[in-house]
């Protein structure tokens, strides 16, 4: 049903075609009925093989016929000797080869080939691998063939190195080959994994490589070689996206360790908030709270009912347990499933306390390459900049420069980054919303870094054309937030992660048409996430359309009863 061009025809041509179709259909129906009757009668003979072969060679998606063939073949296995079975299956492979020549993208034919290869008494995997070679030389993007190749490689134990060399050859003859780059991304971490304890060294390939290992990082030595290969590719054809996608992956970072990143306790409210490095379901991961050596029976709640998995969870302590300011308390939260825990001491006279790793401690928003290799990233940046001089409006180049700048020095390059984003939105306007959101994300990251260097709990990001809010789990301790003069259209439910928030100012709906049939109610509903910020006292909404609605003040008072100081 793909790529069939519609042609205008005369009535006579139409009639001739119809007759021809009818004739073909009659033959088809007769053969199909004969097959179905034979199968119903439990006949598994050579004639049935011939009939199904006749039908399948032009209708390879007729799955039931492949099933019937397999039943016949399984039956023949029980009545013929091994040499005969070998011959029958070899004939089946030849038949399949002719099917694949006509239709190289049929799920049914490829699955059947895998089934036959696995049942062959004396399999010839070398032959299968060379079939893949030939097929991929005709169409190097045929994912059915690539998948079959991966199966052959697995069944016959082809060394990973040999497959990597194969992608070298394919990429060498044509850089624009996304399938080969993809294959490399799965092979490299198997062949050159990063050693677990010394991130800059190359480790030994594990004896048995499971598919999941492709999440592991590639060791640095090999990474450097890959950079060179990719550079060759994008210098040759700067508009070929395959190499750029692959390069962005190479520049990426490893997944963060799963751990408890922050424990916060409030004496006044007698509650504990816990932040994790990734969203979890605290009700099912075995989270244990110890207060002064005593395990506590508490109920963990997600910050927002919408999130069954959340990076921030809260619980209330039994009334009176920590309310006396004269007492000192020690808390420990254990994440039993991951053997991770975090302690937090609440000293005498203090109303709150926390213990955490900051985003700067964790280099959260940096590239994961080790520090001594900054020079490598610097030279990568230089090369891509050279390319940009030749191709000033190449969007792939611009985006990559931004990513490299962030890996090197996110704050130092902020101004240049913003300028590049502006160019990107101009040259690739179809995706301008993507660039706006990505730019917002980077500006938020920078603001978090600045906030942490300054050791304050004030998150202020105004007049930055923000289109989205993210990383809100990093703002658990923030007491004051200023989002004025941005282009945010709504508050995400994640806003409820700001458990310490006291003051919020800012224009959300700045200069933007808010599309909704009933904007009065829905804009109010969009402030709903604020209802989950327990300490919020002061809210400045001046400049938002919501202030124009009748009864705004009364309705907001109902929605956010804790807010005592409301500016509209």
């Amino acid at each position, binding site marked *: 049903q*793909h790529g069939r061009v*519609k042609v205008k025809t005369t009535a006579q041509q139409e009639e001739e075609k119809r007759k021809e179709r009818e004739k073909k259909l009659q033959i088809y129906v007769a053969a199909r009925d004969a097959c179905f009757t034979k199968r119903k009668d439990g006949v598994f003979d050579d004639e049935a093989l011939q009939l199904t072969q006749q039908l399948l060679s032009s*209708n390879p*998606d007729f799955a039931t016929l492949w099933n019937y063939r397999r039943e016949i073949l399984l039956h023949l296995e029980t009545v013929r000797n091994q040499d005969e079975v070998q011959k029958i299956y070899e004939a089946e492979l030849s038949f399949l080869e002719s099917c694949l020549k006509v239709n190289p993208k049929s799920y049914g034919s490829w699955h059947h080939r895998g089934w036959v290869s696995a049942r062959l008494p004396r399999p010839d995997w070398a032959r299968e691998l060379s079939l893949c070679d030939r097929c991929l030389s005709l169409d190097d993007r045929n994912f059915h063939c690539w*998948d079959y190749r991966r199966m052959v490689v697995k069944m016959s134990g082809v060394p990973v190195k040999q497959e990597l060399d194969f992608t070298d050859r394919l990429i060498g003859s044509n850089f624009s080959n996304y399938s080969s780059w*993809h294959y490399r991304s*799965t092979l490299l971490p198997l062949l050159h994994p990063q050693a677990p304890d010394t991130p800059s060294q190359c480790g030994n390939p594990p004896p048995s490589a499971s598919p999941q290992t492709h999440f592991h990082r590639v060791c640095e030595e090999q990474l450097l070689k890959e950079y060179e290969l990719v550079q060759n590719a994008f210098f040759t054809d700067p508009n070929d996206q395959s190499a750029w996608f*692959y390069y962005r992956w190479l520049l990426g970072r490893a997944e963060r360790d799963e751990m408890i990143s922050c424990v916060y306790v409030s004496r006044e409210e007698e509650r504990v908030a816990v932040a994790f490095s990734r969203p979890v379901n605290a009700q099912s991961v075995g989270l244990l709270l110890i207060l002064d050596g005593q395990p506590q029976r508490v109920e963990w709640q997600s910050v927002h009912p919408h999130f069954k998995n959340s990076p921030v969870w809260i619980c209330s302590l039994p009334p009176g347990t920590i309310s006396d300011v004269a007492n000192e308390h020690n808390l420990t939260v254990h994440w039993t499933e991951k053997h991770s825990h975090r302690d937090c001491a609440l000293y005498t006279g203090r109303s709150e306390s926390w213990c955490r790793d900051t985003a700067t401690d964790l280099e959260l928003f940096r590239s994961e390459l080790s520090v001594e290799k900054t020079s490598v990233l610097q030279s990568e940046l230089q090369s891509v900049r050279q390319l940009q001089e030749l191709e000033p409006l190449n969007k792939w180049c611009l985006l990559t420069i931004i990513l490299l700048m962030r890996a090197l020095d996110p704050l130092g390059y902020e101004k240049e980054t913003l300028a590049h984003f502006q160019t990107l939105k101009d040259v690739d306007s179809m995706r301008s919303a*993507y660039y706006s959101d990505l730019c917002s994300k980077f500006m938020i990251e920078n603001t978090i870094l600045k906030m942490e260097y300054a050791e304050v709990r004030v998150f202020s990001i105004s007049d930055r054309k923000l289109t989205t809010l993210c990383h809100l789990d990093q703002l658990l301790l923030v007491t004051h937030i200023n989002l004025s003069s941005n282009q945010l259209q709504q508050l*995400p439910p994640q806003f409820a992660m700001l458990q310490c928030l006291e003051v919020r100012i800012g224009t959300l709906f700045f200069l933007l048409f808010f599309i909704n049939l009933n904007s009065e109610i829905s804009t109010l509903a969009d402030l709903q996430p604020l209802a989950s910020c327990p300490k919020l006292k002061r809210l400045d909404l001046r400049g938002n359309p919501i202030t124009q609605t009748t009864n705004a003040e009364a309705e907001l008072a109902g929605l956010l009863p804790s807010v005592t100081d409301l500016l509209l």
Partner: protein
Amino acid sequence: LSKCVVTCFQEYTLSEYLRMSGIYWGLTVMDLMGQLQRMNRQEIIDFIKACQHECGGISASIGHDPHLLYTLSAVQILCLYDSLDAIDVEKVVDYVKGLQQEDGSFAGDKWGEIDTRFSFCAVATLALLGKMDTINVDKAVEFVLSCMNFDGGFGCRPGSESHAGQIYCCTGFLSLTGQLHQLNADLLGWWLCERQLPSGGLNGRPEKLPDVCYSWWVLASLKIIGRIHWIDKAKLRRFILACQDEETGGFADRPGDMVDPFHTLFGVAGLSLLGDEQIKAVNPVLCMPEDVLQRIGLQPDLLS
């Protein structure tokens, strides 16, 4: 447009091996256009009944073997008609459950082909029947996640290249199992929005031609991960409308090609996701009218 669907129903001998899905495509188009009553409801329900096998699975047509693909299509049709009691639901559940493998994956039928499409078919069928807890959901999720790639997308099996159709199945799967937070939505969203070509149409993989059906798969995936605004909606709308055949009203894969019910559904559903007010709202995960899912009480997760 309905003319296209009706003619497609008359000439279908050659495609009987996927007839159940063909009926689902056609009926969903009709329902989205508010024309479901024009189809012969009883005939279709009787046909589905006749396609359920002893094992509980449902086949594409009479005389064909049962398969997860057509089991899902049949359950979807019965949901449109609010007639799930026409088949033996318990047996369908047993059939689906029996196809789950040790590693959590699902085979399409007893012959063992493994594909993330079948993981989607399995959980979508069970979600529509309200029986998700009958399978090992944790293992099923583990398998789908093992198919995630360097670009944030998904392929058929672990190690397979990312493909928009497969990404639709896997994001839909993660939505139905409440695991969307496991995605790298920013990375995946980038790959997906890069599928839009200057014509406004979307392709299914880098360096491929645009196509109405891929437009749906990419668009629905973007909707599921909360990033539908990352593409140029007006341009996509123009591309989809250019694929509509003036004569029959149906849609083709690309402008000027032959129309078929498959591309007609995905053209109409795509227009609905883009906010076309003449079409009922479509659910991006199950590709069914939202009002039908509301009746069932099924509301798959979407990222915000």
